C-alpha cells in the first residue's frame, strides 16, 4: 500500500509532464499556436514542449530504475516547500493540460473587441507605432498599416479621397447609426491576453444588417472625413463590400 502511494505521485508527475509536452507540440503542429501567441515565440514553445517530454522520459527512467526501495542513505536530500497539499499541484496541472487538449482555442470576436475598447482605438492606438512605411499605394495598405499611418500623422483630411481595400471582421459600433460598422482586426504584441482591436469605421450606402457581427469582409472604397461622436475621423466610404472566409491567421502581429 505504502509502496503504491509512493509510486502514484511520481507517475502522475510523469503523465503531467508528458501531456504538457504533447499539448505544446500539438498547438504548434495544428497551427493553433498563432491564436495564442506572437510567432516570435513559436520556437520557444516548441522547444519547451520537447524539453517537457524529455523530462517526462528521464523521470520515468528514474522511477523505473528505483523500483526496488533504496536504502535511506539516498533519501530526500532536499525538499521543496510546498504551497499545496501533495498531489494538488500535479492534479491542477494535469487537469489544465487535458482541458487544453480537449477545448480548442477560440478566435476572438466582436464581443471582446467591444470589451477591449474598439472605439477608443479609432483615434489612438495603444502602442507606439512599431514600424512606419509610407506605401505609395494607399489601397495596398492593410488595416493595421492604416492605423499605424494614422497614429504617425493623425490629420484625417490628409487621407481623404485615397483608395482603400482592407479586410477585417464586422463590429457594430454602439453609438453610431445603423449604416455604420467597424471593420476590425486584433493585434497581438505578445500573447492573446494583450490582444487589442484596431478598426476603421465604414459608412455603408444601406443598412448594415446584411453583415452580421463577426462576419469577415473585404471593404473597398475611398477615405473621407466625418465627424462622429464629436470627433473628426477618417471613415471608409464603402463602394463594394464582399463577405470573405475567415483568414487562416486572423490576427496581426
Amino acid at each position, binding site marked *: 500500500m505504502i509502496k503504491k502511494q509512493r509510486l502514484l505521485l511520481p507517475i502522475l*508527475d510523469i503523465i*503531467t*509532464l508528458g501531456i*504538457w509536452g504533447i499539448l*505544446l507540440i500539438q498547438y504548434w503542429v495544428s497551427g493553433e*499556436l498563432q*491564436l*495564442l*501567441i506572437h510567432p516570435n*515565440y513559436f520556437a*520557444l*514553445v516548441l*522547444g*519547451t514542449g520537447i*524539453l*517537457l517530454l524529455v*523530462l517526462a522520459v*528521464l*523521470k520515468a527512467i*528514474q522511477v523505473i530504475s528505483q523500483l526496488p526501495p533504496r536504502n*535511506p*542513505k*539516498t*533519501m530526500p*536530500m*532536499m*525538499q*521543496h*516547500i510546498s*504551497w*499545496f497539499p501533495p498531489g*494538488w*499541484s*500535479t492534479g*491542477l*496541472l494535469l487537469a*489544465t493540460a487535458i*482541458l*487544453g487538449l480537449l*477545448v480548442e*482555442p*477560440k478566435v*476572438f*470576436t466582436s*464581443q*471582446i473587441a467591444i*470589451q*477591449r*475598447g474598439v472605439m477608443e482605438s479609432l483615434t489612438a492606438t*495603444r*502602442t*507606439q507605432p*512599431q514600424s512606419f512605411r509610407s506605401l505609395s499605394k494607399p489601397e495596398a495598405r492593410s488595416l493595421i498599416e492604416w492605423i499605424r499611418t494614422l497614429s504617425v500623422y493623425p490629420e484625417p483630411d490628409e487621407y481623404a479621397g485615397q483608395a482603400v481595400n482592407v479586410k477585417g471582421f464586422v463590429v457594430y459600433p454602439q453609438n453610431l447609426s445603423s449604416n455604420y460598422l467597424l471593420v476590425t482586426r486584433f493585434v497581438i*504584441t*505578445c*500573447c*492573446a*491576453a*494583450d490582444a*487589442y482591436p484596431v478598426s476603421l469605421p465604414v459608412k455603408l450606402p444601406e443598412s448594415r444588417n446584411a453583415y452580421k457581427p463577426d462576419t469577415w469582409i473585404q471593404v473597398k472604397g475611398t477615405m473621407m472625413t466625418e465627424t462622429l461622436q464629436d470627433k473628426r475621423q477618417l471613415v471608409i466610404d464603402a463602394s463594394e463590400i464582399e463577405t470573405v472566409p475567415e483568414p487562416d491567421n486572423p490576427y496581426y502581429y
Partner: protein
Amino acid sequence: MSQLNNAFTLFLSLLVEAMPFLLIGVLFSGLLLLFVDEERLIASLPKNPFLGAVIGSCAGFFFPVCECGNVPVSRRLLLQGAPVSVSIGFLLAAPTINPIVIWSTWVAFRDQPEIVVLRVLFSLGIAIIIGWVFSVQKDLRPLLQQTVTRSMVIPREQTVKPSPQQEPEPALLQSGTFLLGQPGTPLRMDAAVLQASLAATPARKPWSDRWRLFLDNTVQELRELGAVLIIGSAIAATIQVAVPREIILSLGSGPVTSILAMMLLAAVVSICSTVDSFFALAFASTFTSGSLLAFLVFGPMIDIKAIGLMFSVFKARTIFYLFALAAQLTFLLTLMVNLHLS
C-alpha cells in the same frame, strides 16, 4: 458560453507564453544550485552595510531564482553567516534582478522599454534601502524564527556574545525529527535544514546523485510553480472577461487607485516573477504605467505565497517591517512615475 471559451483561450495563451520562461527559470536555478560554491561566495562578501546591500541585491544575477527560490537561498545565506544587508538585499531584489526576469520583462514590454528599466532601478533601489536599514540591527537573531537561529553560524566578526541557549548543541539534543542516515551525521528533517543542505550536499555527491537531485528539483519546482501559475492565469483571464470594462477603466486610470489596485493584486495573485510581466501585460492597455510598475516591483518582493515561505525564516514582526517598507517605497516611486513621467 462564449465568454467562458474566451476566458479559457486567454488563460491558455497566458500559460503557453509563461511555460517556457518557467521551465528556463527552473532549469537555471537547478543548475546553479548544483554548480556554484556558495561558501566561497559568502567568504568574499563585503562587510560594509551599503556595499553589502548593493552586492546582495545584484547577486540575483548569479542565482536566477524567482520569489519561490530566493527565500531558501537567502535563508542559506543567513545560516552561513552572510552579512544582514546582503541577505535582505538578496531576498528582496533577487526575484527581479536576474537575467531571466529582465529578459521576460523585455519580451513582454518591448513597446515600453521604460517599464523594463524602471522595474530594475526601483527594485534595486528599494532592496538596497531596506537592506541598509536592516543592517542597523547587527544581530538579526531576535527577528528570526527559532529553528533558524539555532542552526545559524555566528559571524566571526560579531562582538555579540552568544547567549547560553544559543550555544551550539549537539544535533541530537535539539528538538525535531531526525533521519539517521549517514553515520555520525543525523539529518534533521525540518525544512530549514533540508533547504540548507541542498546547496551543501551536491558538491560532495557523485554525479549520478547530482543529476537525480537536479531532475527531482526541476520536476518539483515545475509542479509547484506551474500550479501557482495556473491559478494566477485563471484569475487574470477571469478578471479580463468577467469584470465590466468601466470598472477596470475607472480603477486603472486613477494615478493613486491604479497603483493601490495593482499592488493588492500583486500580493494576492502571487505570480512568479519570471512570468509576472506577461500577466501585467494583460492590464497594460487599461492601467497606468506607474501601476504596472508597482505590480512588477512589489509583487516579487512580497506576495501571499512568498509570505508563507518567509514565515519559515522570519518572525511576524520582521515580515511586517519588510512589507510596510517595501509597500511604501513602491507606492512613492511609482506615484512619482504616474505624476511626472507619464
